[in-house]
């Protein structure tokens, strides 16, 4: 039996030194396959560069031209989150994106950057976003308070969404595997639980990409609101 279900979410230590930051950096450096801008690429680089170009077009086509300078930053964030989520599915590995500290460290600067950019370059335009067009004036004070709160909640939602999704998926896998270990007696139940386990794994693979995409897409939406 597991000591406690949340044991795997503690950062591993080596000689008293927390390894979390090393894992985060190493995965981004080694798992991402560079293409060196060659015309004829090898198979893995072709895959990586096709994926990256498709994602860049998907995320940045609805954004104005002045926001395209954010492409490098946001695509790097996408690949970072995606690779870390995927490698967290291997056995005995530690998923760094399941830690709230890392996700808030990614969400707060990105959101704050868009806010500061909008507030300094066009302050009245960005303040006008707080009150949608055509609202009756009696509702105005409440609506402005609500819109301000929703703007402030955004980085918290970004970070917690990623943390909660990854943690919940890993936890479900742990629980189902605990059930599988103890279920050797009845064969139909074993097959049912095993199929649930396989489906959960496939779901986790999808979630690892979807969460990365949602994170970057939301930041691009916040960027679109604040562009000149």
């Amino acid at each position: 039996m597991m000591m406690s279900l949340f044991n795997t979410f503690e950062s591993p230590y080596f000689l008293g030194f927390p390894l979390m930051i090393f894992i985060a950096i190493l995965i981004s450096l080694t798992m991402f396959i560079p293409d060196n801008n060659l015309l004829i690429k090898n198979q893995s680089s072709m895959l990586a560069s096709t994926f990256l170009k498709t994602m860049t077009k998907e995320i940045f086509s609805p954004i104005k031209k002045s926001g395209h300078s954010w492409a490098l930053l946001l695509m790097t964030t996408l690949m970072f989150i995606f690779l870390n989520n995927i490698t967290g599915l291997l056995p005995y590995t530690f998923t760094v994106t399941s830690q709230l500290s890392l996700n808030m460290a990614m969400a707060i600067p990105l959101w704050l950057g868009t806010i500061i950019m909008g507030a300094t370059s066009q302050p009245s335009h960005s303040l006008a976003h707080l009150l949608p067009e055509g609202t009756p004036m009696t509702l105005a004070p409440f609506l402005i308070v609500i819109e301000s709160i929703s703007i402030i909640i955004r980085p918290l939602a970004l970070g917690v969404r990623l943390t909660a999704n990854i943690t919940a998926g890993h936890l479900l896998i742990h629980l189902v595997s605990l059930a599988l270990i103890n279920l050797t007696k009845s064969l139909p139940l074993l097959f049912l639980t095993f199929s649930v386990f396989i489906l959960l794994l496939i779901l986790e693979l999808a979630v690892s990409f979807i969460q990365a995409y949602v994170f970057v897409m939301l930041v691009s939406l916040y960027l679109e609101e604040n562009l000149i």
Partner: protein
Amino acid sequence: MANKSVLAEQRLLDVKLGDLPQWFAKANYSPKGVLGAFQRGYQRYFNKYINVRRGGLPGISMILTAYVVASYYFVYDNTKHDMWRKHH
């Protein structure tokens, strides 16, 4: 022993066993030297297994297997309480 002057530039697998302490003494341990060693190692692995026309999966799988084994070593103190037998 005859090629002491070029000992430091030789790769580790080419150094003879008797010359090994001298190779360690003459190696470049500055940050630039360490970084260069990592870069050389990465480029060797990349050009041999990944930067080929076909075959991407075995190249990455070796790295992932090594990563899983290293992770097992790092979390051993946490997971040894989950083992079903005390002595293997």
